[in-house]
């Protein structure tokens, strides 16, 4: 059985706020998000299509091939498609860099430079939550099996997501969503999850999100993973992406260990997040069996190692052995409860260390406003304010890319996916683009003195049209017509002639939307 390439994407909403006291400006998240998006130019220039009252302003970026828009008064950044989990941290940091550049430009335009614009890579303020989603390309068959035919696959995937908080959590002071109080927990999202599966993302959030927006060929689907926190630490992001690629690849190949399934993933989600012993036993589906989150994760890592050795993975997850090695090493740190080692690669541990330090030095408590404010400031994207960025700048965070690498990833597309062709088409023909989505571009076509039918270019396979395949085409084709002849036209969905509703198709819990993130 062939496992499809586990292309990665990501989309995250940022916390943004304008502190504009003593000015006539509106002091609100609404104002902040709009001022930020105004500083991120993109295509198409005219955006008369798509969007809704809460999601609007979508633009694709000719720099890295990703996109940006506003979602519920948050600036949202969408990462370009990429293949290697080891590159995922760089693309996340590049997304932060794009947002931070917008912040600086917006700040310069504030009247009299009054006020402050805060931008934070969090997913909760304790009362409300927003998203930092990981997207992974899977086969349509896996999608259908997981959501419609084989509940053990859904249980296995939920088991991974819930126990992966050990390395994906950013950490949070206190409870969220009016749940029972706690001092500190390892992840921000679990308190906001209330269902096992569902299409919705803004209420009654499900561990498994069935929003079906493939942005690709009908043979592929996109697993939209809404459970995770927004991680800043590079190795946390490497593991978040890589372990999820591997688990989905195993599910696609039928590699499931029924002995590892959690009995109640929702209840375990809250338990794992609040368990600072890192060893609390979770009830498994098998009668009377229990295992801690780290034991479950270690077993998954072992299974992934066997899966790779079997040869069934093929080339579907580049760098698979490297992912498993980092996975096991990190889990051993968790098992040893070695906070000092974890703090260099996992956000919740670094945040806990710094905040605990401040509590001890200043005689504060976890309930102190000063500590709750520091919780937010950890993920502030201003390099002079954010605790994470300052600690990374002085070498306290493992595998942090150099500033120049982050700038390059913000300005250049990945070379192994269709993001490469998308970015270069925008650079060359951006003014002729009338509409675009992740898998298609509509060029405005003027014929003599009148506009004729639009021209559509399609890129249904996210793993195609990287640099090696695109450069020769870009060298010999000049016009949209020539490019379409060389690249191809879109695959149209079964029930629609418009890209605005692509992704429905009547499969499972379908949801047609204008929210389109890779």
């Amino acid at each position, binding site marked *: 059985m062939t496992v499809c390439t586990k292309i990665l994407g990501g989309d995250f*909403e940022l*916390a*943004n*706020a304008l502190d504009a006291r003593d000015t006539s400006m509106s002091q609100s*998240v609404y104002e902040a998000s709009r001022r930020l998006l105004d500083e991120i130019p993109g295509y198409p220039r005219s955006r008369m299509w798509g969007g809704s009252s809460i999601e609007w302003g979508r633009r694709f970026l000719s720099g890295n091939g990703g996109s940006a828009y506003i*979602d*519920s*008064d*948050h600036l949202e950044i969408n990462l370009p498609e990429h293949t290697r989990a080891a590159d995922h941290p760089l693309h996340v940091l590049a997304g932060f860099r794009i947002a931070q550049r917008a912040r600086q430009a917006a700040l310069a335009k504030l009247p009299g430079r009054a006020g402050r614009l*805060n931008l934070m890579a969090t997913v909760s*303020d304790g*009362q*409300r*939550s*927003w*998203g930092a*989603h990981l997207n992974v390309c899977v086969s349509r068959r896996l999608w259908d099996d997981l959501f419609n035919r084989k509940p053990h696959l859904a249980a296995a995937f939920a088991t991974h997501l819930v126990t992966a908080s050990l390395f994906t959590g950013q950490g949070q002071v206190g409870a969220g969503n009016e749940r029972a109080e706690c*001092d500190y927990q390892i992840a921000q999202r679990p308190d906001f999850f209330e269902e096992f599966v569902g299409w919705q*993302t*803004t209420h009654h*959030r499900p561990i498994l999100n069935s929003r079906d927006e493939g942005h690709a060929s009908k043979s592929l689907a996109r697993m939209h993973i*809404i459970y995770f926190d927004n991680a800043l630490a590079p190795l946390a992001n490497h593991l978040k992406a890589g372990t999820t690629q591997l688990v989905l690849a195993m599910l696609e190949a039928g590699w499931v260990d029924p002995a590892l399934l959690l009995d109640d993933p929702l209840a375990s989600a809250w338990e794992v997040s609040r368990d*600072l*012993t*890192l060893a609390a036993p979770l009830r498994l589906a098998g009668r009377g069996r229990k295992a801690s989150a780290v034991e479950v994760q270690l077993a998954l890592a072992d299974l992934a190692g066997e899966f790779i050795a079997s040869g069934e993975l093929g080339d579907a997850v580049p760098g698979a052995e490297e992912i498993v090695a980092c996975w096991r090493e990190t889990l051993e740190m968790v098992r*040893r*409860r*070695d*906070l*000092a*080692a974890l*703090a*260099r690669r996992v956000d919740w541990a670094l945040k*806990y*260390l*710094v905040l*605990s*330090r*401040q*509590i*001890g*030095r200043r*005689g*504060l*408590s*976890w309930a*102190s*406003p*000063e500590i709750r*404010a*520091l919780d*937010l*400031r950890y993920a502030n994207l201003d390099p*002079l*304010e954010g*605790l994470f960025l*300052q*600690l990374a700048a*002085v070498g*306290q965070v493992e595998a942090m890319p150099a500033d120049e690498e982050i700038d390059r990833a913000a300005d250049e597309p990945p070379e192994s996916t269709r993001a490469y062709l998308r970015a270069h088409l925008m650079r060359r023909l951006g003014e002729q683009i009338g509409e675009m989505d992740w898998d298609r571009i509509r060029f405005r076509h003027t014929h003599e003195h009148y506009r004729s039918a639009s021209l559509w270019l399609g890129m249904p396979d996210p793993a195609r049209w990287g640099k090696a395949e695109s450069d020769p085409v870009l060298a010999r084709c000049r016009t949209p017509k020539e490019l379409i002849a060389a690249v191809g036209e879109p695959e149209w969905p079964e029930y629609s002639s418009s890209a605005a509703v692509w992704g429905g198709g009547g499969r499972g819990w379908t949801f047609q939307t204008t929210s389109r993130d890779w």
Partner: protein
Amino acid sequence: MEQRERTLPRPAGAGGDPLTGGDGLDVLGANLDGILAEADRILDNLRPINAEEYLQQNRQRGGE
């Protein structure tokens, strides 16, 4: 840099680690001096804020 074993500073006034009722996280065999020194320096140089106001100003809408 000194290698040593230590546990995290306990919050003042708490009987044991308040997170887990006295069974909190340990820092085993770790070299913490570097990271704690950097943390201290960063914390001491943060822009002063009114924490209550900061929390209020940064309240968000939900999302996704």
